[in-house]
């Protein structure tokens, strides 16, 4: 299994300095724009938390890393793979939001001296959730969680922020609560690649950990971004833009419509969570892991609609 090899190579990396992380795939999707596709799965010991897509953008002078993976093991493998591609200094490590599959590898990049960057709400989200994540994921990840630390950003984004990597300016944009309360996108105008973080899911059922209505709204506004392809938070990459948004929008709209109907009928949250969105089941992977959760949170949100 590729993931096992990845974990092994990464685990050995500190012992065998300079070990090339051949198992960690990092493709150049456009000149100077790199992406890694995570496995569509839950975080486990076997995959060392490698379930999210990661990226890097290389300018004339420096490098920006986009998300760091779900463990120190994966973060180190990512760093090693990136070093095979470029020796330019890593100036920024950008987290698209607080979730563990995107931030647990941060520790691997501390020694690069990079500045950690995130949404203005990211420090708060990491403070509120980090300790819970560290204890909750121990059960399913075991020793693959060893060494993981919560590394908050020191540079935060209120609305937009442009970072210059040397003749390559990338645009960071902070969004209202949607997938989470700290979603940040990264646009690389030079290549036309948008790194959406978890504001876009492909194949992996979307996860709502912020606001169902906010997610719908932000995803619609994302469509206006002038990009040609997108690296989603989860799923195949790169994908055509903005066409890639369609399936997710259909899911979120179905879920919203079903929940509104259930609320109108006077159903309780537990009953509604079992049925809302069910029509979308065959279209997505990990549906049974997340749909009832999305429905539960969505129900509590939508119940406040109307008089």
């Amino acid at each position, binding site marked *: 299994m590729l993931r096992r090899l990845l974990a092994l190579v990464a685990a050995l990396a500190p012992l065998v300095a300079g070990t090339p992380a051949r198992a960690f795939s990092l493709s150049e999707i456009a000149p100077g724009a790199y992406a890694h596709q995570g496995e569509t799965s839950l975080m486990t010991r076997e995959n060392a938390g490698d379930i999210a897509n990661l990226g890097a953008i290389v300018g004339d002078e420096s490098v920006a890393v986009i998300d760091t993976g779900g463990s120190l093991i994966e973060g180190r493998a990512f760093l090693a793979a990136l070093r095979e591609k470029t020796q330019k200094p890593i100036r920024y490590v950008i987290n698209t939001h607080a979730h563990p599959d995107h931030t647990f590898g941060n520790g691997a990049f501390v020694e690069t001296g990079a500045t950690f960057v995130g949404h203005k709400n990211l*420090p708060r*989200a990491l403070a509120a959730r980090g300790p819970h994540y560290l204890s909750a994921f121990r059960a399913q990840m075991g020793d693959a969680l060893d060494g993981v630390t919560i590394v908050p950003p020191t540079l935060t984004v209120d609305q937009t922020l442009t970072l210059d990597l040397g003749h390559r300016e990338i645009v960071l944009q902070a969004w209202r609560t949607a997938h989470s*309360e700290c979603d940040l996108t990264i646009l690389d105008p030079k290549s036309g690649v948008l790194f959406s973080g978890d504001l876009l899911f492909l194949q992996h059922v979307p996860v709502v*950990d912020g606001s169902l209505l906010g997610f719908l709204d932000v995803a619609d506004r994302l469509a206006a971004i002038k990009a040609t392809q997108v690296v989603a938070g989860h799923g195949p990459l790169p994908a055509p833009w903005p066409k890639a948004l369609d399936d997710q929008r259909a899911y979120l709209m179905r879920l919203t419509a079903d929940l509104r109907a259930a609320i109108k009928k006077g159903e309780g949250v537990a009953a509604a*969570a079992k049925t809302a969105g069910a029509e979308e089941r065959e279209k997505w992977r990990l549906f049974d892991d997340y749909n009832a959760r999305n429905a539960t949170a969505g129900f*509590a949100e939508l119940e406040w609609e109307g008089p």
Partner: protein
Amino acid sequence: MNIAARSAAGALFALLASAALAQTAPDPWPELVVDIFHSRPIAAADGVIALDAPARAEDAAIVPMTMRFADPSRIKVATLVIDQNPMPMAAAFTLGEKSGVGFIETRVRVNSYSNVHAVAETGDGKLRADAKFVKASGGCSAPAVKDEDEAVANLGKMKYREFKSADPAKREAQIMIRHPNSSGMQMDPVSRAYLPAHFIDSVEVFQGDAPIFKMEGGISLSEDPTFRFTYAPNGAKTIRVEAHDNKGGVYKGEWPIGEAS
């Protein structure tokens, strides 16, 4: 705590759960009986109280729990305890005399694999308990506030809903209160100080001037505390709510009782 004093089902559940938890966490229930119920004996539920809980917490921050009462006139207080939470006593509901509350549904945070106990104090002063084991949610689900800015911006807003009751002799209603109900156990990343807790600690619900229930609770209740319940109508024209939080906030609401049910 006396195992024999608990319901067979509850005890079995607890034993299985204890076995499952043995490697990670000791069973806190014996100490909770001391702390919350002053070591009083707790008998089997015996149909007096029943707890509906999901087998798995889908969203750790919003886990629906329903306590059902076969004969509401026998119940004085119904207490919901999430054994493994940092603040296990989620809510204690003191039922109004003749309120006829058939069930109370609320939503709680469940931090990890945990037994949940519903404990009834009956008119004779005895305690009876039902228990369910709830598996923790997976993935990146955390028992945290979804959108802290919005929670604060909407602080204290209330909503009242009515439903057609399955029992024609009763009315069914729901009270919702906007509140972050935050634990405060997190560190402010800028000041490095621990944020103060901010949560609803009491909610009184009346029909006219007659109390339906008084809830006393804490941070294990989900954000935007919500209570759905049935009650026996006494002819009053309005439902009235008064809620308090631990910072002295007072939130009031009053709504006309509809004709729907």
